[in-house]
């Protein structure tokens, strides 16, 4: 897929990504320096004031051409700030403005100029000074809000997903709360960006964003992004949604355990799962009850495949309670099972995993 294809969002009505200039490039890594031109984006306080074409030559016919040339230079200096800004954009603009200011200062002492011409240059110098001050404030704000290159990239993603205002809403409250260390800021920004992936998915831009975000997360955490779903269920890894492990038995009964097929989730907790009539690994025969309890996915377990060591005991408190406990036939074995939760690998946990028919999202889908 080409860059232009990735940037297009067919049928969504959303604005596609746009590059700032012919020289703009799509980012390929967390440290890339892509510059994005996004309508309405303004990352630093007062930066909109830096937008070009605000200066107009004085209408006085006595003004010589020199100030106009100076204003053109000023506009050229701040032109990059009208789009997406990063630290280098501010510093380059400030350096450029300083150069214009030096030229104007030199011109003020040019003996060939008339007093009238010199007078016409003075507002120009003031304008240079004003714009430098705004750019410096913008740079300070940028540094204050951004946590470094990773956060900068994350902010770009956020900007794409939500627009600048929401980006500011993500970052500014955290700054106020005193989370000012760069690492903390990166965490906050990356967290917010992680939420933004959902928006990207909705925009059919998931593949574009997710790889980039994975790199960012890996950088933020100082580790490689862990592969998700790489291991097989037999190895103790997660089941993919709706991956059916064995055939449905019409004569068997099924119970549902909310959450994933990890060892931890398929092992009782001590001491909470060790006492009471409902002791054991809690499941429900009604997937609706699992969903009602807050789960978005569940493991569908064939009780007929639990083996000889484990029983599935229906013990709901009433007609609306479909609770089913999975437990061994004595409490010493249950304790031993629960004590393995941290380490994993207990035979009962493996038995429960083997009995899983499929993982399904909630509300439950029709079985295949």
């Amino acid at each position, binding site marked *: 897929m080409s860059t232009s294809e990735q940037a297009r969002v067919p049928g969504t009505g959303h604005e596609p990504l746009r590059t700032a200039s012919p020289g703009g490039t799509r980012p390929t890594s967390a440290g890339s320096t892509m510059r994005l031109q996004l309508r309405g984006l303004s990352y630093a306080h007062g930066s909109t004031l830096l937008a070009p074409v605000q200066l107009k030559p004085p209408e006085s016919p006595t003004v010589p051409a020199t100030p106009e040339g100076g204003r053109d230079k000023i506009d050229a200096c701040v032109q990059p700030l009208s789009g997406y800004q990063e630290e280098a954009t501010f510093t380059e603009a400030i350096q450029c403005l300083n150069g214009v200011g030096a030229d104007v200062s030199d011109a003020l002492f040019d003996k060939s100029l008339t007093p009238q011409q010199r007078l016409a240059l003075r507002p120009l110098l003031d304008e240079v000074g004003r714009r430098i001050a705004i750019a410096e404030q913008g740079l300070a704000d940028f540094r204050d809000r951004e946590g470094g290159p990773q956060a900068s990239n994350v902010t770009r993603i956020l900007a794409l997903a939500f627009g600048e205002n929401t980006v500011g809403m993500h970052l500014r409250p955290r700054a106020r709360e005193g989370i000012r260390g760069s690492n903390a800021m990166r965490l906050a920004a990356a967290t917010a960006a992680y939420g933004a992936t959902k928006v990207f998915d909705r925009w059919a831009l998931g593949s574009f964003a997710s790889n980039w975000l994975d790199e960012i997360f890996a950088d933020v955490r100082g580790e490689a992004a862990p592969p998700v779903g790489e291991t097989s269920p037999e190895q103790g890894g997660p089941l993919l949604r709706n991956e059916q492990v064995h055939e449905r038995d019409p004569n068997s009964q099924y119970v549902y355990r909310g959450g994933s097929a990890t060892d931890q989730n398929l092992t009782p907790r001590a001491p*909470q799962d060790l006492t009471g009539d409902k002791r054991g690994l809690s499941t429900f025969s009604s997937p609706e009850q699992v969903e009602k309890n*807050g789960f978005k996915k569940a493991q569908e377990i064939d009780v007929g495949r639990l083996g000889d060591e484990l029983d599935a005991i229906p013990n709901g408190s009433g007609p609306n309670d479909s609770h089913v406990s999975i437990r061994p036939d004595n409490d010493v074995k249950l304790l031993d099972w629960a004590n393995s939760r941290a380490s994993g690998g207990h035979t009962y946990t493996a038995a429960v995993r083997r009995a899983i028919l499929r993982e399904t999202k909630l509300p439950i889908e029709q079985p295949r």
Partner: protein
Amino acid sequence: MAIQATPRHLVPANKDDLSAVEELRLHIQQFGFDLQVVSVLPQLLSWIVDLHWPVASELAHTLRGAGEILVEPLREILQSSDAGAQFAIITVLVRRLNNETISALLPALCRVALTLDEEGASEAASELIGSLVARSTDF
């Protein structure tokens, strides 16, 4: 010197002990989140870490008004490696706390959101942060 007994009657004895939750609710109604409740908060939260347990959602509902006294015990859970517990408390309790309490937990929530897991804790934390931002009028 009289030593105050641990108010065991406020803590469920098992995952189905809804009578203890009702007793806790009545106690809070009468005395508020007093020292007795504060002293057993960690134990109470330990009954919310699995949403299959009947007491979990009822307890969460009872504790929603506790406010800042929940911050430390909740932070401990959010900083643990138990993604299942994190998913549970975010789903039924943390997301229903007031903005100030959630804000106090933000750094811990950020860590959860950045730790990829299979239980949905990372997703729940991200959604919570996003909704907090959406609710924010401070812009």
